[in-house]
């Protein structure tokens, strides 16, 4: 099989994942898109490993070994990521990324850290009451 097929497939997968990460609003779908990107990378690794070993330049199959690492880490990542999303959902009643803007700076927020954190705390409290209601 020519190298172009898996390479094009992995590019398509990566772009789909990238689109999902940048454009989806649901946190779970964003995580799934991240998985897509990781898997695109995995596909690339395996394909190039095969291509290189055919040329008999690499006999260690480091690409395949690296794929196993990536799969493990992706599993751990998705586990933690889903746990965080679950916690956020339980707290806020939503997993919409567009509404999770606690890290934002107000445009005319000039009055120092004390005031800043107060405002954030107030906003958080308001959202919490909204969530429990």
């Amino acid at each position, binding site marked *: 099989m020519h190298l172009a097929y898996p390479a094009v497939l992995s590019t398509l997968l990566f772009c789909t994942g*990238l689109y999902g*990460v*940048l*454009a989806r609003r649901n946190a779970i779908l*964003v995580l799934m898109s991240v998985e897509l990107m990781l898997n695109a990378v995995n596909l690339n690794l395996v394909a190039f490993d095969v291509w290189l070993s055919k040329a008999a330049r690499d006999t260690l199959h480091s690409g395949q070994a690296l794929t196993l690492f990536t799969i493990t880490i992706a599993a751990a990542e998705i586990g933690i990521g889903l746990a965080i999303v679950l916690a956020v959902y339980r707290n806020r009643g939503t997993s919409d*990324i*567009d509404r*999770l*803007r*606690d*890290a*934002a*700076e*107000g*445009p*005319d*927020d*000039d009055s120092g850290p004390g005031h800043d954190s107060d405002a954030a705390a107030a906003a958080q409290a308001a959202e919490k009451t909204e969530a429990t209601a």
Partner: protein
Amino acid sequence: MTTTTLAALVPLLPFLGAAAGLLLGRTAPGFVRPLAVLPTLASLVLAVLVAAHQGGGRAVDAATELTPTGSVPIELALHIDGFAALVAVLVGVVATCVQIYSTGYLRDDPRYPSYAALVSLFTSAMLLVVYSGDLIVLLVGWEIMGICSYFLVGHYWETPEARAASIKAFLVTKLGDVPFLIGLFALAADTGSFRITKVLGAVANGGLHHPTVIALLLLAGVAGKSAQFPLHTWLPDAMAGPTPVSALIHAATMVAAGVYFVARLLPVFQASTAAMVVLAVMAAVTMTGSALAALAQDDIKRVLAYSTIGQLGYMTGALAVGDRGAAVFHLLSHGAFKALLFLAAGVIIHAAGTNSLAAMSRMADLRDRVPDAYWTMTVALLALAAIPPFSGFFSKESVLGAAEHVATGHTDHAPGSAGWIVLVAGLVTAVLTAAYAMRLWLLAFRGRGAKAPDHGRQPLVMNAVLWVLAVPSLAFGGLAFRVLPDWFDGRDLTPTLTTSVLGTGLALVGGIVTYGAWRHTGALAARVPLGAVAAHPEADAGLVEAEAIASHRPAYGDIAYATDPADPGRLLLGPLHRHAATGFHLDTVYAALFVRPVMAGASLVRFLDREVVETYVRGAGAVPRLLGAAVRRAQTGNVQTYVSALLAGTVVLAVAAVLLATGA
């Protein structure tokens, strides 16, 4: 031990005593008094031994160079001639007396340990000045004395008078010390050495290229330290310090340092006729002006302060006519009787509970409360007024004799005009000196009115010291004037007939006129009751004095002045009295000339700092703040925006890298 070792120990012992006193003052209060008195006493004994070894013969010179110091070497040098040996003995005697007196005077003072240590440090610095053969080492002692004087004048820093006086004393003497330092450098630049012997050798060989400039620069420092016009204004105010400090620093030793310095380097000054005339005019203005001011003061210690300025004027007058033997002779006898006057005044202030002569003149029997102070002060005042056979007579006549000698043109080592200036001013001052001495005595001891308050017996140490000092006040002059020429330059110090008769006659006239005026005004005393008495029968003398000084202004409206019609000085001075009491408004002139411009400059600097410099500082802060606000707008909190930006950046970088790699 060799003379050099002994001489090196003389300044060292009080210094070690001061260091130990400062270290142990809090932890071991029992050692403070021995540590104050014993090193000073030991250094007095050593100074006497050094004087005996030296014996007025060849000067003892020793020098060691600790480290090379560039072009002009600075050496730890001793130069002990007859002047140094005798002045060191005087310093030792007065310092020992003052330390012993202070153990009684400040016996309950919480700050006594630091006070005693500073007095020891001061003594050590003065002895260093006296013995030093190197001008820079001399300057070190000179400046240590200045800072010790600052601390000791400000001993009662709770009172605003003492705070102001200590700062004034420091600033005014520094005003003289800056030109003094420049003068020392100029002198070293001309002669190539800081060693006194080498400087004098170079001067003798005509190696001095700018004698007038150097002499005038040095004179500024001398005027500041020795309280000569126009830099004398700090000395009367310095009376806000404790009386023993006034006796040691502001009567006997520190103020004599300037005179002693000129005496050591007299050939440098003699190289310039202009400097000698300036010195003579300075002396004349100082002595007459201060004697007039002394006649109008109400505070007993301020009378003595102005009298000190006047007597220092006599010494500079003797130097102006080129007779350093007479100057140092007067320095020695004056040191003894003026220290005695101050210490006795301390006893009187304690007994009377006030420092005001107006209040004392309304107390009967004050002399019976303090018989020791009464008799010793009488002796000292007679010496001050130069009545024979007291010591002041011989020393003052030697000054007047030297002036007459120069005025009549018998010598050519000083300009004749200087001789006339000093002679006339000296004779006028003789009248005034006797007048204010008489006034002080009459007002303090011949008061009429209510009985003096009973403050219990004076401490024995204080009275004993008075009698110790009374001996040289009485007899030193008469015994010494034959011996001293061997120690000094060999010039005769015997009183001449003309000036003796003139001087004594004028002194008697001054005294009798004052007595007459006192008899005349005495009747008024009963009609105007006066008196603010800080009565603390149990407290030590220092506390009584501090309260007396602090209460003078509220009681009489001024620190130097009391509206007392019974004052003979008021009758004698007439319309001049008001001006004399304030020291001829010199402080007001200085306030207008220096203090106010400095204040205005300070407020200008404050304005520039607050309004101009700080605007730039705030501007420097505002620009980054605006930039930061702009950048903050990008922080929307939406993670996806961030990642998009990250992707865009990565793409740009990747494209750039590819373009670079392909070399397009």
